[in-house]
């Protein structure tokens, strides 16, 4: 049950998700890039809330802010907030069937984008609306895939030893 050995795979998945956020896409697809980092963090916060919680989310958010050149603290705040909600309801979310869980993730992603939208609004960054609802849509669609992949990794880490 030692937690230390299980950390590396999680860190690797988070790094991969950050890389997916900067991989170049064709122009029409940029607005529909799923929020890989948010999805990954929601999963780990739901499954291992004692290890991966708001602190991690904040740090990853800062890294995301720097790598994307957004306002420093924007993604940090938004990620922190949604991870808090996930951790708060993690027991409930774990027993949800997939459809209900996906709907919940949709709500969380909407909240996430709303926080980003709100901060952009306050800071006076003018963005087309598709940049907000695009990631929510694709993020929700990709959620089942992400859970399946990540739960494989989690199984291997927790039971395969």
């Amino acid at each position: 049950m030692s937690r230390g050995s299980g950390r590396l795979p999680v860190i690797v998945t988070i790094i991969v998700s950050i890389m997916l956020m900067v991989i170049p896409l064709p122009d029409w697809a940029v607005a529909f890039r799923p929020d890989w980092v948010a999805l990954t963090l929601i999963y780990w916060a739901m499954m291992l809330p004692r290890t991966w919680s708001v602190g991690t989310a904040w740090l990853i958010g800062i890294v995301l802010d720097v790598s994307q050149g957004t306002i420093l603290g924007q993604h940090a705040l938004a990620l922190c907030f949604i991870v808090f909600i996930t951790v708060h309801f993690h027991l409930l979310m774990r027993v949800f069937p997939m459809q209900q869980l996906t709907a919940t993730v949709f709500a969380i992603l909407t909240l996430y984008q709303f926080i980003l939208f709100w901060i952009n609004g306050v800071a006076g960054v003018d963005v087309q609306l598709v940049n907000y609802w695009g990631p929510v849509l694709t993020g929700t669609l990709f959620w089942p895939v992400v859970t399946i992949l990540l739960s494989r990794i989690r199984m291997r880490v927790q039971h395969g030893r």
Partner: protein
Amino acid sequence: MVTNRADTSNLARIPALGIRLILLLVVSIILMVLDHRQNHLGAVRQAIGAAVYPLQVIVDAPFRLWDWIREGTTERNQLQLEVGRLQAERLLTNVRLQRMTALEAENARLRDLLEARAQVRDDVRIAEIMAVDANPYRHNIVIDIGKRDGVYDGQAIVDVSGVIGQVIETGLATSQAMLISDPSHSLPVEVNRNGLRTIANGTGEFGRLDLPFVTNNADIRPGDLLVTSGLGGAFPAGYPVAVVETVNRIPQEPFADVTATPTAALDQVREVMLIWSSSDAVEPESSDE
């Protein structure tokens, strides 16, 4: 979902989660205010940016590799064709350059007569755009040279056919640049034909700039070339920016509705040039209103 042995073994609440959240939210808000209003956090950004750099290189690597393979496997006759084309091009450019030296000398002489500040040649260095998508909310690019190569904030970036944008953030080995098509980018330009000065704003579309402050009776028409005016200090004067596309004069409005198409293909370039303008030595007045 499958329950988790490690975590369900103790169902007690995660301690002090709310307090940690509030703390982190406050820190985030302070960071955002410092970053956005005062721009104090350049050093912090650079430090974290150095940590992110390897990730960017890894993401960029396959694209580099692909370019390299493609170059390596180009066929011989294709290469010969390319060489022939380039030689012809070089000849042409050389001929133009000869005239250019003469014109430059003449220009310098005339400027002496007018006692204007001498226009010295700009230094240029080629940078490559990394295959890394930056800020989703802005038209940003990441280029592969940074502070250690002497890049500075506000530096002008051009390609062979015109202005592309300017550096907004310098890291150690990479920099972020804003394209002229970004909605928050404004560029002082002048009409090449008659020197009419105005401002070109980005619209968020790669192929369109807005000229919001052209009066209805101004002498501007479709096809006019807009060049940088050098006012504002960020860009050196005389680089082509855009060609006027439409001029729509609305009688009851004070300003005409003018749009222009950037001469550089903002969404297609791979190699760009950074300009070290010698007139940068003259600091632009920082006007705090």
